[in-house]
């Protein structure tokens, strides 16, 4: 009885806590999307953020995509034992896996780790070292000034990362076929071209934009409201990655149902 009562109270507290942060998150977003002070400064900031959060992520996206494309191709090949299934389906599977899931969601999860922790720790450090207070004292909308360029940068640039990931992933599969000879190259290439649905690319790009917004806004929220010292900055960075990842997976289901059903 006592345990059930405690569970009930705890779940209510957790629910209240969730709604508290959910409300605070939306209030922060309303500050972020307030009219910018000087557009020129925001434009310059956005370009800097594109370089920092986007261009600097190209390397990791290429490395992961090439290996994932290779692994998807090889695993599909070694699990297809039925001789009645045509081999070109391996190329088709590699392509559609990259297009539908890997290049948008999986790359999003990886970027949640790289970019999300970067954003949370950067803004969190600025908070604990009073740099955000300094901006506020100057009369600058610190939330908008610090967060809006990051959101714009990732929303603009991440679709390019997704496109790069798609191309490199398919090339990774091609590379695996060349190196291992697991299937005839002609079958792989035929599979890549077979029954291509351009809408899948659009679906992946829309998903990427949503994921980019989730990563940046949740991580920025975690950093912006840090209080304490370096330990709390570290914790906020961890929370940014965990919560962004959960939100990405949740919205992945919703978008998939909305766009592919």
């Amino acid at each position, binding site marked *: 009885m006592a345990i059930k009562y405690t569970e009930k109270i705890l779940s209510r507290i957790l629910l209240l806590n969730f709604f508290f942060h959910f409300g605070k998150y939306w209030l922060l977003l309303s500050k972020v999307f307030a009219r910018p*002070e*000087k557009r020129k*400064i925001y434009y310059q900031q956005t370009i800097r953020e594109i370089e920092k959060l986007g261009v600097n992520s190209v390397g990791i996206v290429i490395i992961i995509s090439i290996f994932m494309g290779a692994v998807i191709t090889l695993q599909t090949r070694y699990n297809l034992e039925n001789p009645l299934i045509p081999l070109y389906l391996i190329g088709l599977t590699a392509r559609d896996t990259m297009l539908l899931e890997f290049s948008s969601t999986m790359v999003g999860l990886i970027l949640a780790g790289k970019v999300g922790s970067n954003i949370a720790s950067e803004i969190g*450090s*600025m908070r604990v*070292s*009073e*740099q955000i*207070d*300094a901006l*506020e*004292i*100057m*009369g*600058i909308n610190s939330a908008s000034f610090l967060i809006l360029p990051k959101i714009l940068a990732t929303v603009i640039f991440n679709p390019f990362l997704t496109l790069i990931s798609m191309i490199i992933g398919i090339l990774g599969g091609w590379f695996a076929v060349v190196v291992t000879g697991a299937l005839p190259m002609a079958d792989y290439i035929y599979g890549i071209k077979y029954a291509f649905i351009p809408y899948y690319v659009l679906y992946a790009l829309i998903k990427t934009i949503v994921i980019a917004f989730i990563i940046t806004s949740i991580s920025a929220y975690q950093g912006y409201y840090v209080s304490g010292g370096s330990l709390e900055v570290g914790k906020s960075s961890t929370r940014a990655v965990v919560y962004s990842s959960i939100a990405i997976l949740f919205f992945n289901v919703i978008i998939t149902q909305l766009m592919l059903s």
Partner: protein
Amino acid sequence: MIEVKNLHKSFGEQAVLKDISVVFEKGKTNLIIGQSGSGKTVLLKCIVGLHQIDAGDIIYGGDIYFNKLNFKERKNIRKQMGMLFQGSALFDSSTVLENVMYPLQMFTDLSEKDKAKRAIECLERVNITHANDLFPGELSGGMQKRVAIARAISLNPKYLFCDEPNSGLDPRTAILIDNLIAEITREFNMTTIINTHDMNSVMEIGDNIVYIYQGENEWKGSKNEIFSATNDHLNEFVFASNLTKKIKDNMQ
């Protein structure tokens, strides 16, 4: 001039500031002193609007009720403020010159050349030369404070706030920073409020002093009156060190 009237501030159940009333005069260095945890920083952050107050008024220039202004109206007053933070709060990713140019970039329509010229003037005023391209991490603590002062005065503010300006500095540099703030206050006829628990600062630049004890305003006066004050808590604070005790003995 800044006037604080019957200010109350609590964090949850804990009352941090209780019925504070004080006037900070223009053209003078106004010091808020007290032990660590007495509520000095909270008072300063309430005055600049970084903390919402629970009750009372904060009046700028005799007729602007700062706590009753909306975000946009506050922003206009904030453009007239400069603040020196305890840890300097310089932007790590920007150079010294960029840091000082920040307020100018945001709030003036000057050309890039004029902004840089103004920033260099401010840096020269605080005796920083040949450090324009350095990053805050490459500066000593004293230099960081001076750059922060340069940034604070770049828009010719009417109000200057300093939160423990000489914490973490050696005594000589601390005195230099104190004197620099006092000089700038007179030169630009600003209302300056300094938050400190350093007795050297009190004796150097304390034109007006407010003593806060456990969130209450227990004493007001000047540096000349502090040694003859009869408040027990203030005496415990002022004569905590052997040096100040000896000074008092010599005076007697």
